[in-house]
Structure formats: structure tokens, C-alpha cells
């Protein structure tokens, strides 16, 4: 598979994934995650240029999830009484700048940028902006998300009721 073909394949996959998240198809989104997935979003700090250490092992994060905790988050939404998302927000994921850093037919690492817009009840609009570094692996013939590092561009953030 050529580099261009691989990038096209992942662009399609990331757009599909965004569509699932925007249309409340969270169980189908979960199915894209490998059983051993790590999904994490470290906090950001304002420090001297070049000295930010957001990948430190014990750093507090906005997410540090495995399949079990991601599933719990989705189950919580499905109770219908997750008050911060009931009635649900309108959510739109815009995904761009897709770059396959390294890849073959079995495993690929790639980065993409995102803007997520959330609107709810007229008074509550949020933007979340950042970059994702993903590793996808082909498992039983389909690509599964094995690791996602979400590098948010916010240091002070709003209530995070969305997935990235």
C-alpha cells in the first residue's frame, strides 16, 4: 500500500469515527477501540519554552482511559440521567491535518488536528482544540485504535462532556 493510499484510508476512517461521535453512535465508536486501548489527554502547563513535561508518567490528565472506563462513560450517557449531557449537546468534530508518520498494512501511527464544537441550550457553547497522536492496528481484518494521545491546547478547560 502506498503512503498516499494509507493516508486516504485513515482519512476515511477518522471522518467515519467523527461521524459516529457526532451522531451519538457511541457504542459503534467503542467498537473501533482495541481491547487494550489507552486513551489519554494530559493536562497542559504554562512553563518556559521547551520545558513542558506533559508526558510525565504521573501527570494529571483529563482522560486516562482503558476500554473498561470508556465503556463506563458510554453506559453513563445511556442512563438518560447524566445531567451534564441531558438534554444532549449538539457536537461537531472537525478533523484535519492527517499525517501518517509510519505505517504498513498491520500497524500505523498518525497525527491529526481537531476542533470540537459543542452547543447546548442556547447559553452553553464550547470549543475544544487540539492534536491527536494515534496508533491503529489491524485486528481480525479491521483497524482498531490501540493508543490515542490527545494533546489539548487548553490549560484552563471547560467541562469535558465530549470524546475526542
Amino acid at each position: 500500500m502506498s503512503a498516499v493510499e494509507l493516508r486516504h484510508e485513515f482519512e476515511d476512517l477518522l471522518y467515519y469515527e467523527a461521524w459516529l461521535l457526532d451522531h451519538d453512535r457511541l457504542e459503534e465508536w467503542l467498537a473501533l477501540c482495541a481491547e487494550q486501548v489507552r486513551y489519554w489527554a494530559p493536562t497542559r502547563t504554562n512553563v518556559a519554552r521547551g520545558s513542558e513535561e506533559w508526558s510525565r508518567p504521573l501527570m494529571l490528565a483529563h482522560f486516562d482511559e482503558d476500554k473498561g472506563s470508556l465503556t463506563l462513560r458510554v453506559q453513563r450517557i445511556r442512563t438518560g440521567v447524566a445531567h451534564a449531557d441531558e438534554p444532549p449537546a449538539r457536537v461537531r468534530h472537525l478533523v484535519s491535518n492527517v499525517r501518517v508518520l509510519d505505517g504498513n498494512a498491520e500497524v500505523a501511527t498518525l497525527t491529526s488536528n481537531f476542533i470540537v464544537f459543542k452547543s447546548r441550550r442556547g447559553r452553553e457553547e464550547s470549543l475544544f482544540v487540539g492534536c491527536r497522536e494515534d496508533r491503529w492496528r489491524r485486528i481480525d481484518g479491521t483497524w482498531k485504535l490501540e493508543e490515542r494521545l490527545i494533546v489539548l491546547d487548553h490549560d484552563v478547560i471547560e467541562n469535558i462532556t465530549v470524546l475526542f
Partner: protein
Amino acid sequence: MAECGELVDLEHRTVSPRVFTDPDVYRAEQERIFARCWLYVAHASQIPQPGDFVTNYMGEESVIVCRDADGRVRVFVNSCRHRGMRICRTDTGNTRMFHCPYHGWTYDVQGRLVGVPQYQEAYYGELKREEWGLLEVPRVESYRGLIFASFAEEVESLDAYLAEMKWYLDTVLDRTAAGWVVLPGVHKWSLKGNWKLAAEQFSGDNYHVMAGHESMVRLGLLDQKTFMGQPWTRDFEVQMEKGHGWLNLTMADPPALAEVLGAHQAQVQAEARQRLSPAQSDLVGCIYVGTVFPNFSLLSFVGFVTVRLWHPRGPNRMEVWSWGLVEREAPPAVVELARKMQILTFSPSGIFEQDDGEMWGECVEAMGGVYRRRFPLNYQMGAGHGRRDPEKPGLIHPPSTEISVFGFYERWRALMSDGTGVHA
């Protein structure tokens, strides 16, 4: 217009919505609460070495918390004496000097003005540098690693201010000799809501749990009975003098957690029995939620301990800064569990935290209308039913009660209505 203090009705135990919505009340609070109380600024483990600093806020005031060259903790107003520029714009670091980026005035970590560009040429050497050091917050004291500061020179000692609360703080912070350290990173988030709604909730609002976190109940992760199994002894709320509140609850850890925590907990409990009174060590391993008046709270739940500040940002905006505390000698698996559980439950994405944030913002918006705000909010639950316990300080009552929640407003009222003439 009413005096601020009249907005809290002691006889009927009600609070006016204006306490949460009125910009004049908010402005008065900055003087009467935040400029007078002890405010939490940092944990000692964040600044172990000379020159280490973190930046934070005391109310709306930007401050630098710094360990000086002699090892003493000083808190400076983070604003240059020349034009007011914020001199330190990083969250944390180590330095010998704070250098203002605007015109270059430079201060050492004792706060002295040690560098003035063109001192001879422009100031003719006449500027009295010794008079223009950084503004230093006059009172800084700490308790079990928690560093507090106060703008009020004449304020009572931190020890006297924390008073009965020390007994409860000790059940967490003094249970082992090794003590606690702060994890790297801070959860910071901005949300609608008045800071007091968050502070009062953490001072003892157990009543909200079943409705507010109903999603957790439906998933089988919370059960009303779990908070009521040992009334008075281990399931209780405490109203304390000075407006502090504490909630002590029991809940069996889920099996997966117990497996990781079990051995460590047993060790901690054994050590706690040596260090604390029997009544205190009986409480080790419970859920704790507490507020030190006005805006510092501590929460211990499912294996983690967080301390946090509810920074005021206008009547209907607060910024939460929340840290993770772990025992210095806890095994790595226990630390990692604490970190992950804090992220999952009480972070900006937390499956409990989100529910609370939704309430605080909606309360303030919904009660602020011209008609609604004429009618007070009800804080009557449990009034007059608190008891003294020979072994535990404060006024005690099992869940559900709101005695400590209203106690927060009794203290607020006392500070807001001291007759110095600020009217809402």
C-alpha cells in the same frame, strides 16, 4: 438595599438568591471574605527547594508562592511595583529572580527590588529601591503541608482559624509519618456557577448525591444505603465553628479497587492507630469531603485524595484548580489507581464532577430573575438536631442533613455584616 448580612436569615435558615447572583455582593465578598480569611495557596511538596515557586490566586489576586533562599515560604502579589505588570507568567518553576518583562525591574526570591534598568541614568540613583520591593502577603502559615496565606495582618493564627477542622484533616494528612505529595499537573477548569455553591456542597451536602449523581446510582456504583450504614460513628456530617464543614461517609470499595488498595490500606490503618486517637483512626478509609472556609476543599474517594480551590470569577463564574495528593510512600500501583480514579470521577471530564458543574451554573442562572430572587432558598434540613460527641469535635448529625451547609452561611453572614458600611 439590604445589608449583605441580612441576605442570610438565621432564624428561618434561608439564604437569598442575591447571595449568589448580585454583583455588589460579589464585590463586597472580595474585601470582606477574600481579603480577610486564610486562603490555601500551595502544598509544601510543590516547592521543596529554595527558589521553587508556583503561581496561584487568592480570590482574584494573582500571587507567587515561593520558597526563598533561606527556605522560608513567601507569598508575593504577582504584579510589578512599577506599572503593575504580571511579573511571573509561568505556572511553576525554580528561579533566583523574578524579572518583569515590561521595563525590566527585577526582584529576588525574598521580594527585594534588586535590579532597576538605568538606575543611575534615568532615576539619578534617587529611587528608594528598598521601598519598592514586591508586595508580600503579610501572613503565611501552614498546617500538615497545606500552605495558607492571608492579606489580613491581624488575622488569628492558622491554627486557631482551622480550629476543630484540624482533628478531621489529621485523619487524612497525619495518618502516616511519611506524609503526602502532590502529583504533577493541575486540573483547571472554568465553569458557570457561584463559588459558594461548590464550597457549600463540599462542606457537607450529602443530600444531592442520589439525585445529582443518579447516573451512578443507575449503574449500580452508588447506593443510598452505603452512606447510612454506620450513623453517628462513621456516617456523619460535622458543622464546625468558623464555617468549616466535613462529611464522613462509608462505602465498601468495589472489589477491583480493594484488591489494589487492600494491603496498603491495612498498613496505613496500623500506622494511623499509632499516631491518631482511636476515634480518628476508626475513620481511616472512609470517604471524606470537607471545606475550609471560604474556598478550599478536600475530597477522599475511591482511593484518591484531591485538594482544590474554588476561585471566584464573578457572580456566575468560577475556576476550579484541583490537585491530586498521594502518600509519599504509597506503592506505585496505589498511586496509579489514585490518579486514574481522580481522573475518571472528579476531573473536568469526571463522571461525578460533570453532574455537579451542571447544577452550579444552572442554579445561578435560574434563580437570578427579578421575581425568583425575591424568594429565599431553603437550608432548614436538620436544624436543631445536631449533637455533640464526646470523641469528635463539632456538631454532628448523620446523613442526610444540611447543618454544616448552613453553617457555611452563618460564617459568611458574620463576615459580611460586620458594620463597616459596605452595602449590597
